[in-house]
């Protein structure tokens, strides 16, 4: 099947009425989640994961993917109007977006964010199609050693790029790896680390863990500042469309943001957040008037917003081609695919073309929907922002409870979620990032399987990990990254970059 005919096949799936409706629900909820500070894409996707069980796998993935890129769109609204990022990838949009709003140019800021996101998302999808196919063909020759080393690299990159100390990131990865070991052993079937709890025999569920770490702990953190009012810009939206001058200034930043976002999104740990910061730094560097940045430069909105959307699209490449998630959201999607009985990896594109091409085509459809949702409905999103957190947080908690319970109709999952909620709260108060924990938790069983397979296959010979070129390269990069924790100069530089971010 050629790429073009495969894409038509994908559109045939994506444009089926039920898939179209689910895509719309996904992008609508995603935008809502992006607008509302306090619940992120991971929480929203975990929440809707049980809902997808009754759907076909492709419909479920279309909806979950819609939430993800919908969040990227929606996040910019709060950044521009309230100076509060709806989700992490929109932090940088606050810098110039809010300043533009203060100058009465909220409309063009929101407009260029939406158009830039659309353009980047569309180009990102084209890149996704070609890169995934290419990488999937290469990945067919990978063995357990390569997979294990690539997962180590992914984990190291995520740890390296987390805010704060690398040591803390490593500890979180270790904790996630241990939690993933709870339950039955994949080889012997022996129950391990269940501490006598029947609910732990099958292991700890992904959804309760994510709901706890990202949903409950986020609410607990926000409750501390309950009562603080958000100041929302009083602005009219008569001039949402950017002027020709705005377009002239934004064209190159959108192009650069798309390229930066696309390639950084493929890297494990890269994702939307990093790419938006890199794009902002690049625009400042390219600009003839860098002094205008931070004071309402439209390039500071166009570049990062395009970058985070391109990155959210290209993040699907390692998932679909290698079966390795590059960030927490992709880890969640991997979990969803596995729950539906699918095994993402190089063979998925040929074995289940409906999933791959259906999702890809739905992303394009979703991007069009988002453009139509974001511009005319900005007034509605602003009203949503006015809902006080006191009213919002019980609803978020309720959704977390329903999400965690309905996975297995098991009360034990609620206890697990609450425990991880408290753990997540304490960890975040102590400046520990939860992302490496979740990624290690998801990658844990795969890492274990590949490590044990490799060791059994090569008669316990550890040198196999360094005699195979790709495995060696991945491990060397991992070690070099982690060694930076003990090199004061590099660590200072990294801390400075993350602090600037």
């Amino acid at each position, binding site marked *: 099947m050629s790429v073009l005919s495969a894409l038509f096949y994908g559109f045939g799936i994506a444009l089926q009425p039920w898939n179209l409706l689910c895509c719309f629900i996904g992008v609508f909820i995603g935008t809502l989640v992006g607008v509302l500070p306090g619940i992120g894409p991971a929480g929203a996707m975990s929440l809707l994961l*049980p*809902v997808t069980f*009754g759907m076909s796998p492709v419909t479920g993935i279309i909806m979950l993917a819609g939430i993800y890129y919908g969040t990227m769109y929606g996040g910019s609204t709060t950044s521009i109007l309230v100076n509060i990022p709806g989700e992490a990838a929109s932090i940088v949009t606050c810098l110039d977006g809010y300043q533009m709003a203060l100058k009465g140019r909220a409309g063009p800021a929101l407009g260029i964010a939406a158009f830039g996101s659309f353009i980047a998302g569309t180009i990102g999808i084209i890149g996704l199609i070609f890169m995934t196919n290419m990488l999937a063909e290469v990945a067919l020759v990978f063995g357990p050693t390569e997979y294990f080393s690539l997962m180590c690299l992914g984990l190291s990159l995520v740890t390296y790029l987390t805010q704060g*100390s690398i*040591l803390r990131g*490593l*500890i979180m*990865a*270790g*904790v996630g*790896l*241990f939690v993933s*070991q709870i339950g039955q*052993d994949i*080889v*012997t079937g*022996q129950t*391990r*680390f269940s501490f006598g709890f029947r609910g732990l025999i099958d292991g700890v569920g992904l959804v309760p863990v994510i709901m706890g770490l990202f949903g*409950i702990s986020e*609410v*607990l953190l926000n*409750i*501390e*500042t*309950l009562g603080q009012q958000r100041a929302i810009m009083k602005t009219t939206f008569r001039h949402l469309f950017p002027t020709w001058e705005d377009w002239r200034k934004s064209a190159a930043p959108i192009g650069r943001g798309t390229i930066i976002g696309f390639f950084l999104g493929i890297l494990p740990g890269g994702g939307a957040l990093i790419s938006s910061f890199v794009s902002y730094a690049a625009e400042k560097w390219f600009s003839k008037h860098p002094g205008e940045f931070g004071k309402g430069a439209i390039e500071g909105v166009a570049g990062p917003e395009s970058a985070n959307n391109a990155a959210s699209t290209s993040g699907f490449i390692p998932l679909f081609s290698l079966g390795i998630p590059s960030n927490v959201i992709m880890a969640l999607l991997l979990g969803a695919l596995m729950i539906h009985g699918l095994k993402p990896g190089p063979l998925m594109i040929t074995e289940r073309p409906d999933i791959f091409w259906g999702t890809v085509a739905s992303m394009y459809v979703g991007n069009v929907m988002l453009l139509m949702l974001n511009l005319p409905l900005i007034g509605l999103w602003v009203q949503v922002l006015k809902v006080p957190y*006191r*009213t919002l*947080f*019980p*609803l978020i*908690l*309720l959704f977390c*409870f*329903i999400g965690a*319970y*309905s996975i297995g*109709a098991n*009360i034990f999952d*609620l*206890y697990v979620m*609450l425990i991880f*909620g*408290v753990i997540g709260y*304490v960890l975040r*108060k*102590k*400046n520990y990032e939860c992302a490496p924990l979740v990624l290690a938790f998801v990658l*844990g069983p795969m*890492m*274990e399987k590949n*490590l*044990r397979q490799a*060791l*059994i296959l090569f*008669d*316990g*010979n*550890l040198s196999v990990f360094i005699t195979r070129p790709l495995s060696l390269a991945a491990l060397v990069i991992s070690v070099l990254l982690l060694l930076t924790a*003990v090199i004061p100069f590099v660590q200072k530089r990294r801390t400075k970059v993350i602090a600037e971010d």
Partner: protein
Amino acid sequence: MGKAMVEKQRGMSEGIFWVVIGGIICTLAFQHDLGSFRAPGPGFVAFLSGLLIGGVGIVMILSMSISMGRAKETTRGAGLGIPAVSLRRLAFTMMFLVAYAILMNPLGYIVSTFLAMFGLFFDREKKNWFWSFFFSVTTSLASYLVFEVWLHCQLPRGILPWW
């Protein structure tokens, strides 16, 4: 005692905590059979995770004892620093959440959700009885309709088996 010294001690305690956790994990993994490199057992990867945690904990302790500068890194994370008012809110919220989890099966989804939502919506400063009641009834019924009736999620019925 200087502030830097207090921070340094906190960093050391953090390191010691993770060394202990790593040690516990290694012990547990050992009990579940580590196997060998030729045939790794069920505790093999868990043992590696314990080693990683414990090892990083040791590096934390060493870096704290060697460098005073590193101690500054822990400033932001030192202590939970929760004001008394927030602590009360947190305690109430957690209490309602735990009670909600415990009561969901015996009382059923609708009743337990109503009680939990009433507690969470209720503003102890404004004493908004009516609005709390209204919101909790609406939320319980609307979520029941969406998740149980429309999306066919299996929610517990408890004392209202006909629902």
